[in-house]
């Protein structure tokens, strides 16, 4: 009799344990999925941004063709963004693109005809809109990364995170304000800190779980 009670208790405990484990595992999966979804929010805006750059470069070329360095920097930053394989790389390339665009728009100040060009103005507006949207999408993404990473690093979920390879996700870091002043001409090609690695897809899927 006592044996049966003991066995019954053990069985109940085991079943409860199994359910808890399943619940925690699912929680991790759900959190990782949320990170992935939030990343696509950033990705959409990054794509919009890279799609606009060629048009912008062409427009500026028409008025300020000898600002070659500035234009090249923009194009290079765009290429870097397209090749970025991880959120961190994308963030870095995106921050670089932001800086080069800033210097491009600063240069444009010297060309009244360009500044009056409707196409240029539209592009400028749209790019600043995208920049705002990236900031908001980043906020949402980083919140999700934070809650996922917390799960992968704290007890008890950390056990399953290790067991099933739930790696912490990368944050999408904002550019630190004025980390480096926008240099109008930096003509050294190898200055790109981390050129795109293997030919990843143009848009970076989140690193974790892939």
């Amino acid at each position, binding site marked *: 009799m006592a044996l049966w009670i003991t066995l019954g208790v053990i069985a109940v405990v085991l079943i409860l344990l199994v359910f808890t484990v399943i619940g925690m595992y699912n929680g991790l999966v759900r959190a990782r999925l949320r990170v992935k*979804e*939030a990343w696509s*929010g950033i990705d959409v*805006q990054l794509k919009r941004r890279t799609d606009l750059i060629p048009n912008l470069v062409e427009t500026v070329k028409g008025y300020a063709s000898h600002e070659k360095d500035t234009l090249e920097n923009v194009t290079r930053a765009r290429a870097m963004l397209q090749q970025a394989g991880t959120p961190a790389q994308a963030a870095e390339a995106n921050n670089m693109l932001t800086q080069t665009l800033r210097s491009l728009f600063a240069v444009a100040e010297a060309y009244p005809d360009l500044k009056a060009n409707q196409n240029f103005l539209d592009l400028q507006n749209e790019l600043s*809109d995208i920049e*705002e*949207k990236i900031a*908001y*999408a980043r*906020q*949402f993404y980083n919140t*999700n990364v934070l809650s996922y990473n917390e799960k992968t690093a704290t007890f008890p979920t950390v056990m399953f995170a290790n067991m099933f390879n739930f790696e912490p996700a990368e944050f999408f870091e904002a550019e630190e304000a004025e980390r480096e002043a926008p240099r109008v001409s930096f003509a050294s090609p190898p200055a790109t800190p981390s050129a795109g690695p293997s030919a990843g897809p143009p848009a970076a899927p989140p690193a974790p779980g892939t």
Partner: protein
Amino acid sequence: MTTAGSLPGTPDEPVLIYDRIGKNKRQTWLMMAVFVVLVGALVTALSYLLGGSWPVLPFVYAGLLAWVLFSYYMSSSIALGVSGARQVTREDEPELCRIVENLSIGSGLPMPKVYVIEDSAPNAFATGRDPKHASVAATRGLLDKLDKAELEGVMAHEMSHVGNYDIRVMTITVVLVGIIALLADFAMRWAWFGAGSRGSNKNKGGAAAIIVIVAIVLAILAPIAAQLIHLAISRQREYLADASGALLCRNPDALARALEKISADREPLEVANKATAHLYIENPLKEHTSFLNNMFSTHPPVQERIRLLRAM
């Protein structure tokens, strides 16, 4: 992460939104159940008091259930309709739409429908039964009188209501119990002014008696309705929307300034009424004189809200 339910002003404590959502969904059910049971019981009791059970009682119950369903699905359209809100597109209101779009990206919610109310009193509300069927409305006065950051703060407050299902509870109240509030208000006024002076024309006694009974029923229902509306609003709801809105737009000061401007504006919002007042970010009725108005007074003191935002 634990919820700080009693401390609405702590911005760094992420209030567990899933808790809020669950609570709001439960509250919606509770409100519908209380409504059906209370009104059903009242009608039943009346029917026995007035001699025997009425054969129409089953129909009354069916009507009550239909009314609950109707208010679940139609409340937001009605709230927008009676407020004279007009849906706008990106072309009509680029700035407002852009702000709402940015905030929906920032909160991970689907883009709600955007409405504008042509009224110069600054105010705003959100409505809908869930984030997929949500709408936000801003008055013309709000768009004119606030700068971009302030408008962003107000809309962030509204998006927080959308995200945590506040809108479901608040909106269902409009039709479910708001009508009673309006009718009760009307009946009280009629009893006060109309009954005495105009009672001398050739009304038949029976009709007058029925009207008196209806007035009494409404007078009983009014406090119940008021209580339900209170349930739907609760000060905490506004404080929490302020806090998470500030978190969303990253600018508590702008929201505080917006609240200051909205509350300093003495112009009442003409399209608001007792059934919809609790939806707005700040009380649109602007007058607190009569007993009924006090009973329905719904919004937490704006000075306190501003103080909490400033302390973030």
